[in-house]
């Protein structure tokens, strides 16, 4: 289980995360949501040990994430960022298989794993030798997901993975992702600022404000029993859009 215990982090005198306690239940999807700058992306980077907390600690299955343990623990966590974060100098296949080559896998094993992931993410096999610049936004995101899944990690951390996509591609990928999350049974932490997306994915939704957790629970909890005025406003703001969308569909 991935846990954050009393974690605080300040960047150049600006607090990004304040005293956060979170346990991410295994095999479920938790969505971190909040306005820009609420510290949700920083929480993922803290989990990976890309930044170290000023106070508190991060644990994966009881093992503390620190400078020494982080490189090994990261191989048990997959990380996907907006637009995939692909390396422009490597083609899609080599982006996915970079760690396999680093770990000295045999070529055949690597190839099979890449093809397996391509099928899982519905990425066309024929596009594996294309460079990121030659792929569509949705394809880049699929490659980013394949890369994160290569070592079959128990945790998957996704930082606004769909924010840069147009609505149709986005909807298609949302369906695909939810299916993959359910089938693979991973512990998923997904960051978004879109409540509709949060409701679509999240078994549990965590609302953050100024680096602190305001409320966590299901969408129903947030709507029916808001912890404070901010939660109500946040929900109302996004529900307006949701309702408008529903009217258009009628």
């Amino acid at each position: 289980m991935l846990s954050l215990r009393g974690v605080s982090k300040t960047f150049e005198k600006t607090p990004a995360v304040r005293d956060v306690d979170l346990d991410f239940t295994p095999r479920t999807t938790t969505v971190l949501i909040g306005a820009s700058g609420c510290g949700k992306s920083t929480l993922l980077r803290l989990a990976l040990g890309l930044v170290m907390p000023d106070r508190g600690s991060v644990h994966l299955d009881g093992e503390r994430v620190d400078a020494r343990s982080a490189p090994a623990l990261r191989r048990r966590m997959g990380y996907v960022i907006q637009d995939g974060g692909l390396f422009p100098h490597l083609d899609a296949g080599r982006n996915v298989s970079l760690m396999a080559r680093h770990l000295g896998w045999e070529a055949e094993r690597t190839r099979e794993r890449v093809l397996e992931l391509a099928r899982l993410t519905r990425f066309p096999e024929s596009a594996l030798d294309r460079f990121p610049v030659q792929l569509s936004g949705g394809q880049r995101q699929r490659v980013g997901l394949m890369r994160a899944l290569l070592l079959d990690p128990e945790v998957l951390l996704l930082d606004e993975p769909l924010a840069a996509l147009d609505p149709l591609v986005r909807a298609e990928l949302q369906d695909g992702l939810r299916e993959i999350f359910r089938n693979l049974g991973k512990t998923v932490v997904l960051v978004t600022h879109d409540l509709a997306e949060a409701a679509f994915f999240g078994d549990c939704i965590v609302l953050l404000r100024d680096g602190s957790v305001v409320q966590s629970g299901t969408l129903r909890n947030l709507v029916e029993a808001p912890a404070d005025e901010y939660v109500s406003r946040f929900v109302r703001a996004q529900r307006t859009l949701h309702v408008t969308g529903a009217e258009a569909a009628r």
Partner: protein
Amino acid sequence: MKRPERGGRRWLVTATLALAGCVPSCSGDGAGAAPPVRIGSKQFTESVVLGELAAALVRASGSPAEHLSQLGGTQVLWNALVRGEIDVYPEYTGTLEQEILKGDEVRGEAELREALASYGVVMSRPLGFNDTYALGMKAARAGALGIRSISDLKRHPELRFGFTNEFMDRADGWPGLKARYALPQEDVRGLDHDLAYRGLSADTIDVTDLYSTDADISYYGLRVLQDDLNYFSVYDAVWLIRADLKARAPAAVAALARLEGKIDASAMAAMNARAKLRRVPESRVAKDFLAVNLGLTVAQEEQGRGARILRRTEEHLALVAVSLSGALCLALPLGILAARWPRLGAVVLAATGVLQTIPSLALLVFMIPLLGIGAPPAVAALFLYSLLPIVRNAHAGLTGIPAPLRESAEALGLSPVARLWHVELPLASPSILAGVKTSAVINVGTATLGAVIGAGGYGQPILTGIRLDDVGLILEGAVPAALLAVGVQALFAGVERWVVPLGLRLASKD
């Protein structure tokens, strides 16, 4: 002579040489042959002619000889002789007394020989002419102003003086002359000896220093001003020879002695005139003199233009290749360290930046006390010059990688070395390559200055061309140097296709 402090710079020099040693040398004589007698000459025509005479005499005696032409001024030649980088060079007794041994207060020939012996140097008998300093001006202008002697200059403080750089600084040059004659002139500038004649001819200066055997005196119609206070010493031409040469090449030393008392002032002036005004190669001037006066036939060793350019291309390429590959070996790791540790990076960038601000000619000359003359000091200077563009571009390329990409690599669980190798260096490769290209192009141009300290290359014909006012010769160095720079640009376009990953090239076109 005082030697500069060396301890602190030693490591740098050693590192440079170690790097230079990695690359096979392009020059060097065949194994087993006797080492050649190395003859030096100064940057003016008479010294080069004397150097060619010495080389021809030594070869006629059966020893191989190498003439390091136009190595520099008095101090460069003297130090090269004392350090054993050359075996022989022509010098003047006045220069020995007034300049080289000025601290020793030598009086007369016996004391002079004794002082030289303490440096392991032997002086020949005079070759037969006294090439003293003098001041000269255009005869017409001198006549109009009524100037016959140096004392007459006092009445004309408005006159513009242009002296050779060496004369400006020497103890027996301008400072002493100004004091002895109480000269009032303020407009005094230092320039090259040959340019001074042209300046005189074009009326940009009025008075310059002369050597009394200069061919130009009659050519430009100059009046030599009388030294009425007997300021200038006697400058008898002699050979300075390393004492140990007699054991190594006794026949060569004996051959050099054959010229003692054989060249009078008019013969020397005539040879200078042939070389300088009629553009006869110094080697042929020397050969003809030896044939007429000593009955000596010397095999002519003139190279065709093609062979000359080819040899200089080899020399030039060797300077560039060795210094550039050495710089790459050091600058790339420095750039990587600078990018990883910003505080160290600031120091490294500042240090290499300071190196770049040293004028290239000065840097070359600084290298002489450390590494002597020839290719090693030139390579060391070019090496130092090549560092900054590579360090700066490696640093910029690595620090310019977008943070999400750097974090993506880190989040995968790659080790720092693997991140550098698989992700960061490939992403920075266009910038790094641009830095190496900048260094290479600068290096090709700067290497032409190497000729000033005897490193050869395309600078040699440029240097000789300036001395002889021969545009053809200047172009013989300048055109290949320019072509080489263009070639280097083209080469790097090819290297780019090979080094920069396809994905990045596609992305940059996007």
